[in-house]
Structures are given as structure tokens and as C-alpha cells.
């Protein structure tokens, strides 16, 4: 029997298509996906960023760097073109883009269509979210949990698959000894028990 774990719940939500991560610690949620990658991944970074992902830290987090190729983009338009082409090709398992503005409805629809064709996923780390609606499969907010370092609260803000989202579906991501652990948030666990 398939055991429903917190990690499985998240994996099921992160289906084929484009997903948006937002929040101060969204990077770690993306890194958790990167650590789970079995095939090639493209990581997009803005060319003019003042900082970069430090490879040794990624290796310590259990990420296979030989599966990761980095692409520097000049602007939002270029980044979206690369994401779309990579999704459509099906050559990569994930494409993760850092530092983008929220794609508009048309752009996110295009990304989803490309992802359906290539059966791959895009994770977009947003600079901030706007009020405009778009067609992202899921949107997540990742913040610090209870003021504890290395413990992050993952909140599902939107899911096209699930339809209505109460905003109370939370998970806790823990980084212990440089390994990722996912648990159901205490409030969510209690809610599920009542159901």
C-alpha cells in the first residue's frame, strides 16, 4: 500500500507544469527539489546578480552537481524563452529560475503548455507576487518557522489541481546535518486528524 507521507503530498502537488515559489527562504525549497533530481536540471540565474550559488554548499546539501547546468539570463524575456524551450525539449527533469518577476497569464499558460509537451517541470523563484492572476500549477510561500534557523514553513497558496485552497495546508521543512526533511505542520496534522 502506498504510504502517504508529507514528502509524497508535496511531490504529487508538484506535477508537470510551472510552479512558483515565493518568500525569503524559497531558495531552500528549490534546493530540496534539486537534491531529489535524478536527471539533468537547468538552473537559471540573473547575469547581473551580486551573488551566486556556492557549489561546495550545494554538494554538502546532497546535490549532484554533474546533473546541474547553469544558464545566466539578461532579462525576464530571455529567461522565459529559455524556460519554455527547456520545458518543451523534455531534455531536462526540472528547470529552476531564480529572481524572476511573476509571469503574466499568457506567459504562464505558454510555460504550462511547453511543460505538458516535454513532460517536465519549472520552478520559478519569484522576487515578489503581484495581484494579477496567472496560470501557474501551484504557488508556494516559504518562510522561517517559529524563528528557528534551518526550519522553514511551506505554505501552499494555490493549486490548480486541488481547486479551492484554504491556505492552511502547511508543511515544515527541516535541514538537519545538511539533509532535507519534510513534516506535516502541527496545525495541519491536527486538522487532518479531525477530518
Amino acid at each position, binding site marked *: 500500500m502506498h504510504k502517504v507521507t508529507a514528502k509524497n503530498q508535496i511531490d504529487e502537488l508538484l506535477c508537470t507544469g510551472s510552479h512558483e515559489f515565493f518568500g525569503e527562504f524559497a531558495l531552500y525549497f528549490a534546493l530540496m527539489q534539486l537534491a531529489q533530481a535524478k536527471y*539533468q536540471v537547468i538552473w537559471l540565474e540573473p547575469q547581473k546578480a551580486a551573488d551566486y550559488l*556556492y557549489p*561546495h*554548499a550545494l*554538494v554538502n546539501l546532497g546535490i549532484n*552537481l554533474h546533473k546541474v547546468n547553469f544558464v545566466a539570463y539578461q532579462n525576464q524575456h530571455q529567461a522565459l524563452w529559455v524556460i519554455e524551450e527547456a520545458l518543451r525539449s523534455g531534455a531536462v527533469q526540472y528547470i529552476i529560475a531564480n529572481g524572476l518577476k511573476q509571469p503574466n497569464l499568457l506567459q504562464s499558460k505558454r510555460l504550462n503548455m511547453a511543460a505538458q509537451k516535454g513532460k517536465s517541470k519549472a520552478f520559478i523563484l519569484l522576487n515578489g507576487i503581484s495581484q494579477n492572476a496567472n496560470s501557474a500549477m501551484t504557488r508556494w510561500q516559504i518562510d522561517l518557522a517559529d524563528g528557528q*534557523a534551518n526550519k522553514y514553513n511551506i505554505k501552499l497558496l494555490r493549486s490548480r489541481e486541488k481547486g479551492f485552497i484554504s491556505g492552511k495546508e502547511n508543511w515544515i521543512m527541516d535541514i538537519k546535518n545538511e539533509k532535507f526533511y519534510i513534516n506535516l505542520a502541527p496545525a495541519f496534522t491536527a486538522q487532518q486528524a479531525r477530518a
Partner: protein
Amino acid sequence: MKNFISISLPHLQLNKLAHDQRNGWDDKAHVVIERIANKDIIIDANAKAKSLGIDKQQSLTKALACFDEIITCPNNPNLQAKIIKKIAQFCLKYTPKIMLYGHSKLLLDTTGCAHLFGGNEALLQHIQYDLYGLGYDSQIAMASNMRSANAFVNQAVIGTYILHDDKPKEHAALIKLPIEYLDIDDEIIGQLQRLGLRQIKDLLPLKSASLVKRFGQTLLTHMNQALGHESQAFKAIKFNSIYQTSQAFEHTVILSNYLQTTLKILLENLLIMLKVKGKASRQLNLTIFRPDHTTQQIQINTSQAHLSAQNLSKLFALKLDKLNAPDGIDKIMLTANLVENYISKSDNYLDKNETENIPLTDLFDHIGNKIGFDKIMSYVPANNHIPERAFSELKQSINIGPSSWHKTPLKRPTRMLKQPYILFDFSFANFEYQGQRQTIIRKSGPERILPEWWWNDPLWQDGARDYWWLIAQSGRQFWVYATAHIIRAETGEISATKKRYFLHGWS
């Protein structure tokens, strides 16, 4: 009988300049100068300059004193070498054996080639006509050996040729030539002239032993080579193979669909040409020739040697809109600039082990041709204890094989700053970064990292760094280092040391 053609191009640099600046060339005096013993000496002059009385070996200062409107150009041996190589490549149509001789001479071994052009005379006329068409002044001579061909070429007037295809006549003409045409040092020429020995025939009655004793071996060797008693080594230039295919249109073509169809045909032809030689292309150039006699080029690159016309035409399709030919196209030319030995897919390591990587190279070719290959990179570990040099960034490189990354025993920040950020107003209780005050709740460290003493890195000029991990109330973990900044007095002595704090990364 062997046949050698010597081609001398005495005004190589000026001819090139004349070709580049077609308009107004004849109206102005142009000279090529070289700095010899702190003096600018004219080494070549165009017709206008010569008509004003300016000639070779004249000092530029003197020439400027008489005529102030002289356009000068410094002597450029590199440019000359490039031009002469290009002309040599052009001469491949006459013979495959071509040798560079000095900075401005070419030697062609045309033995057995002349009949293809209608005989020796027709061949010489052909060469002369072609070089004139290219805009180069030439002196041409044909003889039975290299040395005599080189001697006769000095005698030929610009725009004419000397032909010797009869040995006795050639010998008779050769012995009347001045000795300096045998490429002898000026010093020996001076000595010979003092003795009244001016022509080759003057040397013939002299004994070889006495000639060698007095003037060295070179004179005798060169004379014997010219007379055909000794052979001379022919060092033919090795040209890289050119993989090129083109299509000229009878009428100017405007339709872009037609261009794409022709491009596909050219690609297939070129790839067959490469496949036969066991090669594959990594860089292709498409040149279009427009009716106004101008050309335009687009280039595509691939991350691996490619033999798929379909994929390559897709890459060209990304750039075809950059071609601007409103009046149409006369000719299309496709050239493989960079070729590599092709490893067939069945022998490829990737095919056997990591099949998922095969379309990845196509994807990166697609991305690289659109946004630039320098934007694609991967990391490899480097054996260095300095954090920013503990890895190498490989640009234009795709990660395809397993790498030798190992976990580091010490914690490192997830994001590292390209330039460490100086923290003014720093204390271990709190500090300000990007307008936000960070309150520190815990710290760990320090980890001391010493600079590499064997090279003076400007970023590490303050010496050893003490790295601290600072955990802020916001949940951020900052990697901060402290250095001892040395303040020196005007005399250069150390007057004080001050600790400075920098933010280098965070998790």
C-alpha cells in the same frame, strides 16, 4: 623538365591599402614606413608619392619637409604574412605545391600542371591576370629550378613575366644576371664588387675551393643551385582543408522559403563532404552575397560535433531573420569553420550510459545560439583552500559526466557574494546590511583562512581572514570575516592596524 614559378609581390601592403580604400587612392601620396635606428624610413611608396619624387630608403622627415600631405602607414609584417598566405591559398588553383619565400615571394612547383592551362606561357598569363584582378602588383618568372626562378623574378618588370622553358637558353640568360639576384648577403656582394665580380658568369672560371675560402659556402651553394648542379628543398605550405559549398542563383532570389530550402540542400551536401572525411562541424558560417556586391554572415555554433542537417537547419532558423537583403540574394555560401573528428554514436560513451544527455546537447545548442554560449556554464572542483577559488567555472561547457565533487568538512554559505561587502558599524550583537538591522542571536567560529603567499591577490592583500558564522534573529545565517587592515604612515611604516568586517555569503 621541372618547372618552378616565382611570384614576387613588391607592394603587398600598399596594394592591400589601395584595395581597402578604393576612393581617392591615386590622388594622395601613401608611403609605408619603418623605424630604423630611431628614424622613420620610407620602405614603399605609391605612384602618386613616386611622382612627387618620394622613393624608398628616403627619410620621412625629409619627405615631409618637401610635401606635407603624405599619408603614412607603419610596416606590418604580420599583415603581410596574412595577405601572402591568402594569396598562396588562392594559388592552389594552379598547383598544390606552394612555398612561401621571404615576406613577399611565393614559389609554385608547377611541374605537370601547365598543360591544364594551355601551356607554360598561358599559365603565366593566367597568374598575372588573376593577381592584377586581385589588385596586386606582381613580378613573375618561370625557370627549371627554384633558385634561378627567384633570380629571374628580380629582373622582371612589374606586370610582366619571364619565361624560360628551354634549358640552354635559360643557362645563357642566367649567367648574365647580377650576383646579388642569388640571395647573397650585402657584405659579400660588396666584397665581390670590389674585386670586379658583378655577374654570375664572372664566378664560373673561379675555383670552388677558393670561392668557399674567401666568401663562404653560401655563395657557392646558391650558384650551384641556380645552375642546376645542386638541389634545393621545397617546403610546401600545409593548408587546412576548406569545407565549403555554395549555390549561385541565376536570378536574384528574394523569397525566404527558397533561401531555407537552398540552405537545407547546402547543409546536406556539406555534411556528406565532412562525413566522407570522418569529420563533423562545430561552427558553421552562412554567407549571403547581395546584388550591391556586399556580403552578410551569420554563424552557428554547436557544443558537440554535429552531423544532423535537421538540427543544424533549426539552429540557422533562429538567426535567419538577422539577414537583411531587401534587394534579394545572388549567392549563398556555407562554410564549416571548425571541424572535429566525428565519433559515431554507437561508440559514444554517452549513448551507452546516459541516454538522457543526448537531447540535452541539442537543447544547449539551441539556447547557446540564441543567447550566447558564454551564458552556459558548469562547475568543476578545484584544489584550492581559498573559498572563491575552490571551484572553476567552465563557460560554454555542459555537464555530462560524473565529476569528483566531495563534501567539505566545514560549512559553506549557500550563496556567496561576488565581491565581499564591507560592514561598517559592525558588532557581534548586530549589524546593518541592505538597510536592515540584523540582530545576532548566536555565533560560531572563527575559521582562519590564510592567503596564498606565492601570489599577490589584491582581494587578499589584508592577509589572513577569520570567518564567523552569525545566526540572525531573522533566520538568516551570515558568513562574515574579519581582517586586520594595516594603516601606514607617509613614511611607509605601520602606524596602526584596524579590524574590518566583510560579509562574504549567507545561507
